[in-house]
């Protein structure tokens, strides 16, 4: 395999609040290879967006990246000057955001905003930028691109706005495109179109994509590799097929179990993960998922598991792992997914 284009090592992002320190990103490590599309999944507050913002040093106040390294082209993005990181933003690493409605400046023409992304990095002259803007709009399949350039954001539909955002992200042909929930604000058919577009662009232009989402379906459709985050940490990572077929972390397993299925039995209830995401001010001792885990064992309450290779290229941080849970606790037949249900360590039966 080629050498990674982006290496993230032990990334730590914290928020200092009145009540204490929130470790929003707690030791995240991963590599991104040229041209691949990597999914980062997790529920709200798992630190996936903060990981993305940390890469470009865009963490909002009072957050701060306090440790780790982000290596891109032999430089540590956390160490370079403000001027240098500004040059990298949008030119080498571009980012698109969740809500295309609010990510475009309402009082500026859409085409102008795309051209501006090029002019900011002096990648083109004004005339070239104008021309390339139309090409980009065609590339992201906006019909009648020539006349749409002059439209204001409110004159475009949601899908078209997100296409325009993608065009803006691609303006300088970046080597990495970070997409932070780019389809969440769109309806399902438009979602599919946007994902298809991102997939095509990934193939054609060789732009590496980091796809941040809470939607497993999005990951399945676009990504080749997945990171699963929970409470600021990566709990599982591996190739998308492996993760979907044989997840090793109970959290990943639960996430997959909670996807509504078209072929579900009529009376089958929609499953959700019991409990709520942990309070990052006071994260649980031991494994951070243990308060919600059906397969927890005593060790999970006290000792924190490390991310280790379970199968080639598939890593998980779990004392039990789903292979064992399947073999010993009958995970595949499990109907009751309350905490500790499979291992007999339910809240009521716990002895302190």
């Amino acid at each position: 395999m080629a050498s990674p284009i982006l290496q993230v090592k032990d990334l730590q992002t914290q928020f200092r609040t009145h009540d204490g320190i929130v470790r929003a990103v707690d030791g995240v490590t991963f590599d991104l290879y040229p041209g691949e599309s990597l999914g980062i999944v997790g529920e709200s507050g798992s630190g996936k967006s903060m990981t993305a913002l940390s890469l470009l040093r865009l963490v909002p106040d009072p957050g701060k990246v306090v440790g780790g390294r982000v290596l891109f082209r032999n430089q540590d993005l956390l160490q370079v000057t403000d001027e240098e990181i500004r040059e990298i933003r949008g030119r080498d690493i571009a980012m698109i955001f969740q809500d295309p409605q609010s990510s475009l400046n309402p009082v500026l023409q859409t085409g102008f905003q795309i051209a501006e992304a090029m002019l900011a990095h002096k990648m083109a002259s004004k005339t070239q930028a104008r021309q390339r803007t139309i090409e980009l709009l065609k590339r992201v399949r906006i019909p009648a691109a020539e006349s749409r350039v002059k439209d204001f954001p409110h004159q475009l539909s949601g899908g078209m706005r997100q296409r325009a955002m993608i065009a803006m992200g691609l303006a300088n042909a970046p080597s990495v495109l970070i997409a932070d929930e780019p389809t969440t604000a769109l309806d399902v058919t438009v979602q599919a179109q946007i994902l298809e577009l991102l997939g095509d662009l990934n193939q054609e232009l060789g732009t590496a994509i980091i796809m941040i989402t809470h939607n497993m379906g999005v990951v399945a459709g676009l990504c080749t590799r997945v990171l699963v985050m929970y409470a600021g940490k990566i709990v599982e990572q591996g190739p998308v097929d492996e993760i979907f077929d044989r997840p090793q972390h109970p959290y990943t397993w639960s996430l997959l179990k909670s996807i509504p299925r078209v072929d579900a039995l009529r009376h089958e209830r929609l499953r959700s993960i019991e409990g709520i995401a942990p309070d990052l001010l006071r994260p649980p001792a031991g494994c951070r998922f243990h308060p919600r885990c059906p397969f927890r064992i005593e060790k999970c309450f006290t000792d924190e598991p490390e991310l280790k290779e379970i199968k080639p290229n598939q890593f998980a941080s779990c004392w039990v792992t789903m292979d064992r849970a399947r073999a010993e606790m009958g995970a595949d037949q499990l109907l009751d997914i309350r905490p500790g249900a499979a291992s007999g360590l339910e809240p009521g039966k716990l002895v302190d």
Partner: protein
Amino acid sequence: MAATAAAVVTRPIAPEQASLWSDAWRRLRRNRLALAGVVYLTFLVVVALVALIHTPYPTYEVGVGIPYQGPGGQHWLGVDALGRDTLSRLMAGAQISLIVGVGTQIVVLAIGVPIGLAAGYFRGWFDQVVTFIINLFYGIPDLLVALILVFLLGPNLTNIIIAIAVTRWMDMARLVRGQTLSLREREFIEAARASGAKPSKILFGHILPNALGPIIIQATFGVPAAILFEAFLSFLGLGVPPPTPTWGSMAAEGIVTIRIAPAMVIAPSIALSLTLMAFNFLGDGLRDALDPRQRR
């Protein structure tokens, strides 16, 4: 930097304004009072311009009529104590009022907008210093500040504009700071930052165009306030020195003889009142027309 930033701003906004302004103009026209204000102010500007080249009688010439003469055929608005034609002086006074009103707001914009933008965007110690200075200026009576400045700098038109602006810039700075504070948290600012935009670009290219509506409204209301303040200073004898005709000094000259020649006070007072009303109606109309919640 200010010059280049301004150059950057004007171009991008131009096409945008075509749409925003035509929209606002459409709503403004439906407002009768605002429209009346626009008509009156246009008339006033024309009068002030005409006064540059022609007035019925020379503005400074004494004895063109009988002193204290009331309105009549030769002198429509009468003659003052020195025998000068009131209408001619009123027309010339319109120049002073408009220059003071608009000039003050230009200075206020030049001070308030950059300070407000920087304080709202960078926050931290700079914002604290700015907020402190703003509160300081609010604390000192504006008349006192203006009087001291006029005394120190000397009473002429430019210095009076500066003196009034110094007592009026805080509202603008505070407004722009507030707008910036809320706009900087919007996602499109984050998106602009993520695409590598420089702070100057974000401030003048993204935040300022979005705050333009409230700024214009504030400036429109600022004009009559400045005109009134100048008239007040002139009335006290601290404005533009005689013999330059200003509405305030004309009223002051007439007040002692109000019983025998009321026109000397009434004419400039009505001109002043109409002008203040016109600007306020226009400001109200603009507020409705530029209010994003009323987009129709």
